[in-house]
């Protein structure tokens, strides 16, 4: 952006009392060449805004720079159509409210802040939004209750849906269920679930195409333009705009539960009981005799590090329902339930109370220690049940193991490793590489064919999974966050859940699928930078095929050709800038965010020479968390060292280490990086941004060594948005350490 720029200074909210606006105005009109500079005591008031609008209307300026409060506030007032929000200088929260008033250092900070904003403005280029044709059709993979519901919900919102099921008919697990436990008021009556009606409705819906006995062979492309190859008897390719993955679950393999008696006659699973009940009367499998007593063993292979290390959350309610099957057959049937915790949350509690109140149903907290079969074919279950005092032995006709749910997902990381290893073997590797690759193929070879979506992505064929195999979001507040844009998991594959929750989950995932199509139509990013129409542009003639961008993109947006040249799929991109931060050749930039832009901001900072004893500390702050925390420190009138110069970044992962090298070689004394927590419970909204920034600091050490500078001059701190009270000490301590190190010897070079 090279047009006429105007600077508007607000003296309200104490800014005018802390900073010399005359000084800033002089800077604006001389050094910064502002066409117009005006000061107003209440810039966000009608009169103040009118000043700016008049100058825009008269053509006196083309772009305003607003030097007032934080860019996070008054956005509805400071918005001048058309185009993007105006350039803002945070004179209030990050200057006037947190530094000594009428102080040289405070004034220098204010002036540098203005210089940085003008530098940023100078590096903006016009946006060129993506505008390719987008498909409005949505693919739903999996024809169980989740997939059927998703298809019906999407169709009801006006979208075409392609529903694909690998089995010969729709219905999934629910197809074999006799009845469902109560989910609606009064929460005590079993339900039929209406699966058959839903199957009829989805089959008859003119907007839904149902394909059974069909698998996804390959998924290419990006949101708005996925090309999905399906295999029925033949292969066919379909273009869709978004994908809902509703592949459901399977029961935990009971053959691994020998310690609980599985393998003995008359020890069955809850899944087997359901089949028997749906088929007719439940009898003892060994001799076909009636079941007069039954023991349910809860958490069979669940909440156990040796098996499923989580709670499947439906087994307790399922047991309560299945008790009813036995009760219907035989009013006098003795029922025992051995549990760790009965998990019947919400109004489900009502059903537990109802079943618990029956005099022949005994619930005991305890663990099983052994299951045997006596000579008469009865099952002897010994248990530690502290509820009725120490060890007990129960004799029953039948034991039901309440087994948990395993997601029908694929292990993307492992499949990627397997693929890389196989490729390595094809490439004429060294002996060592060959050995390693062979070991990987041996270890992971059994996963071949377990792919679900078969994404033709450089970063693997499926959705990344969490620790227990669920392709779930890692975020509490954004549970539909996906690391593969335009693809959303729903139902029991995403997390253990029952049919009632799966229905709502199907609607949620379908909404996100629809939304991703809508945003793709406008060439805009999805969450969290919704509406952003920028995207990375690669100057490939300088690319060295180092593959850092293709490896580090947390969203798998960048594929690569045989040589390793990156190929961006912009509709998958989330605009975090991590690729830009990763690139050692600095060939990646956005129209409104670039290596050059931040470098220009760093360059705009005045660095006093060493005799002045005024160190300069550059802070790169994550704009989502650290920056609001800095604002909050100001709002609380916390004071801290005024030697800092704050540059907000989209994500700390977009930090290119060249900026650090630039800053240090220009004589800045220290660099502080404020990013989100990383590790297992990471808080980075772009998954790995802060972690990657931290890793890049390793390379900074080399730079520092080359420049013969102390490594302490560059530090990264993990700062959460609510850590605002720690900011003054954090900054002051860092600045004090930098002062103790003495001035950067590169000052003045």
């Amino acid at each position, binding site marked *: 952006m090279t047009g006429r720029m105007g600077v508007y200074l607000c003296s309200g*909210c104490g800014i005018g009392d802390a900073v010399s606006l005359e000084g800033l105005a002089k800077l604006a009109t001389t050094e910064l060449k502002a066409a117009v500079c005006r000061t107003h005591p209440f810039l966000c008031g009608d009169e103040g805004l009118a000043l700016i609008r008049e100058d825009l209307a008269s053509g006196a300026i083309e772009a305003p720079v607003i030097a007032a409060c934080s860019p996070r506030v008054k956005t509805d007032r400071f918005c001048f159509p058309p185009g993007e929000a105006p350039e803002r200088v945070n004179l209030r929260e990050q200057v006037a409210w947190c530094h000594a008033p009428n102080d040289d250092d405070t004034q220098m900070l204010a002036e540098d802040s203005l210089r940085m904003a003008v530098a940023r403005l100078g590096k903006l280029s016009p946006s060129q939004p993506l505008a390719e044709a987008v498909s409005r059709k949505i693919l739903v993979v999996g024809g169980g209750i989740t997939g059927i519901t998703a298809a019906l919900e999407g169709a009801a919102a006006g979208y075409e849906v392609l529903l694909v099921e690998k089995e010969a008919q729709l219905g999934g697990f629910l197809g074999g269920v006799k009845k469902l436990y109560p989910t609606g008021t009064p929460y005590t009556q079993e339900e039929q679930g209406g699966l058959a009606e839903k199957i009829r409705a989805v089959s008859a819906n003119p907007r839904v195409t149902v394909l059974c006995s069909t698998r996804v062979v390959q998924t290419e492309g990006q949101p708005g333009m996925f090309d999905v190859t399906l295999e029925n008897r033949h292969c066919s390719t379909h273009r869709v705009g978004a994908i809902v993955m509703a592949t459901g679950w399977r029961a935990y393999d009971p053959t691994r539960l020998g310690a609980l008696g599985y393998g003995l006659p008359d020890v069955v699973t809850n899944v087997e009981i359901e089949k028997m009940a749906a088929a007719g009367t439940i009898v003892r499998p060994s001799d076909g005799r009636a079941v007069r007593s039954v023991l349910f063993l809860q958490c069979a292979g669940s909440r156990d590090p040796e098996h499923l290390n989580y709670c499947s959350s439906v087994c307790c309610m399922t047991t309560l329902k299945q008790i009813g099957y036995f009760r219907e057959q035989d009013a006098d049937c003795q029922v025992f339930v051995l549990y760790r915790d009965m998990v019947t949350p919400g109004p489900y509690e009502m059903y537990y109370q109802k079943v618990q109140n029956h005099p022949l149903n005994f619930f005991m*907290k305890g663990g099983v220690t052994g299951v045997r079969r006596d000579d008469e074919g009865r099952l002897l279950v010994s248990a530690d049940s502290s509820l009725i005092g120490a060890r007990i032995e129960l004799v029953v006709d039948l034991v039901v193991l309440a087994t948990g749910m395993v997601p029908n997902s694929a292990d993307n990381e492992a499949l990627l490793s397997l693929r890389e290893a196989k490729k390595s073997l094809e490439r004429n590797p060294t002996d060592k590489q060959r050995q390693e690759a062979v070991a990987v193929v041996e270890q992971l070879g059994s996963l071949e064919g377990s792919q679900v979506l078969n994404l033709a992505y450089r970063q693997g064929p499926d959705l990344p999974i969490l620790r227990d195999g669920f392709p779930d979001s890692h975020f509490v507040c954004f549970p539909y966050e996906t690391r593969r844009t335009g693809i959303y998991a729903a139902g029991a594959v995403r997390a253990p859940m029952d049919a009632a929750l799966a229905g709502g989950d199907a609607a*949620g995932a379908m909404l996100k699928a629809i939304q991703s199509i809508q945003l793709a139509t406008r060439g805009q990013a999805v969450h969290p930078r919704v509406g952003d129409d920028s995207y990375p542009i690669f100057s490939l003639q300088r690319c060295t095929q180092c593959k850092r961008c293709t490896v580090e993109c947390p969203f798998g947006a960048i594929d690569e050709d045989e040589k390793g040249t990156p190929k961006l799929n912009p509709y998958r991109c989330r605009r975090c800038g991590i690729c830009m931060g990763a690139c050692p050749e600095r060939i990646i930039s956005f129209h409104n965010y670039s290596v050059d832009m931040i470098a220009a901001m760093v360059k705009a900072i005045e660095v006093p020479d060493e005799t002045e004893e005024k160190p300069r500390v550059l802070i790169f702050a994550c704009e989502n968390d650290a920056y609001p925390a800095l604002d909050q420190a100001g709002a609380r009138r916390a004071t801290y060292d005024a030697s800092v110069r704050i540059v907000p970044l989209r994500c700390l992962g977009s930090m290119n280490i060249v900026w650090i090298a630039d800053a240090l070689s220009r004589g800045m004394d220290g660099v502080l990086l404020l990013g989100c927590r990383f590790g297992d419970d990471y808080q980075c909204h772009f998954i790995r941004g802060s972690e990657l920034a931290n890793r890049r600091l390793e390379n900074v050490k080399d730079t520092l060594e080359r420049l013969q500078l102390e490594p302490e001059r560059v530090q990264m701190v993990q700062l959460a948005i609510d850590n605002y009270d720690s900011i003054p000490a954090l900054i002051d301590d860092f600045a004090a350490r930098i002062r103790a190190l003495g001035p950067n010897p590169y000052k003045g070079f």
Partner: protein
Amino acid sequence: MPAAESGNGKPLPILVVGGGIAGLTCAIEAAEAGNRVVVVEKSPCLGGRVAGFHQYFPKLCPPPCGLEINFRRIRNNSLIAVHTLAELKDLCGKPGDYEAIIRFNPRYVTAQCTMCGECSRVCPSETPDPFDYGMSSARAIRLPHRFAYPAQYAIDREACMDGCHACADACRYGAVDLAQKPVLEKMRVASVVVATGWAPYDAARIDNLGFRRFSNVITNVMLERLAAADGPTGGRILRPSDGKVPRAVAFIQCAGSRDENHLPYCSGVCCTASLKHAAYIRSQYPDAKITMFYIDLRTPGELDHFAAKTVADTGIELIKGKVARVQEHPGSRDLLVTAEDVLRGRKITREYDLLVLAVGMVPQTADLPMGIRTDQFGFVTEAASGIHGAGCARFPADTAASVRDGTGMTLRAMQSVSAGRES
């Protein structure tokens, strides 16, 4: 039949009642899918209950982090109209075309407010701060909380001194308007999402647990405020009676839950929440002794990892059994807890210096207009109409579940918008 359209020819908006995490999710998700949305929130700011929490389980991350992103999404989206201090008073019509009567209550502070804070500094009235459940006091004119959105002060008029206009005099921006009056307005909307959230069960109604009678008996939501950086103690968990560091803390689960005299249902979140609270206490006071009296430890799904890890890390003592009685030591204000220990088959009496009641969630649906159907507990039930419940107004839910539900219900609400377009 053409779409039901408002006067200016655009499809009718979706009305979201309640601006907590479920409601604001609904509003944002619907708008980002291209729909117009109107949010009415009865308090002065968005965010609801979660805005007062210290951290979310299982990641122990701060709620303002996600709220910041959500507020930015709202700021950037012209399809969302947010009305705080607004309530739905009446509703009639049919799916695709409802008429809602909204009451806009006065804020007494206009959009001219710059948040400079001068008004609060001169305000002579102090009132118990409801955001801190009365554990701190606040000025009558104030920002509802640190990260409040809209970032705009509001006056609690009932707390004002008669005839006082100190704030109006002090405001240099003419943002205080003490003459504002409530206004009723009609609004045509295509569908309604009821996301009115929950309130903690009134612990004073549980006679035997001593809440309100004994100052060191607090509730789980109060503990959240004590742990929060912007809370009454600046984030330090201290005994209300004397501000001392607690050395022995007990959590009483199902306080007024799974109990036909109080809430018959299980709120589903209190077990994990109390474990999270144990983690707060452990991180501040590594030597504190922590006990939890529980009936069943309900940490479904992947939350079981969090439970196992927290139990191991905090060394929390789990006692299965109901608490029969709480007594207070008159001098020390310490608490004597008598409970059954079911697994050992005995009655026990223990002393603690802080007691936390894990109270359940009460859906906030009692004041809603007729026609919004609820179950026997007040949770909004599914109906084949353009009215949908979401989040804790529909079932007891944690944050992630509320957001998921809000997202799903958004699609149902959108269907009513498009239903107007079809025959």
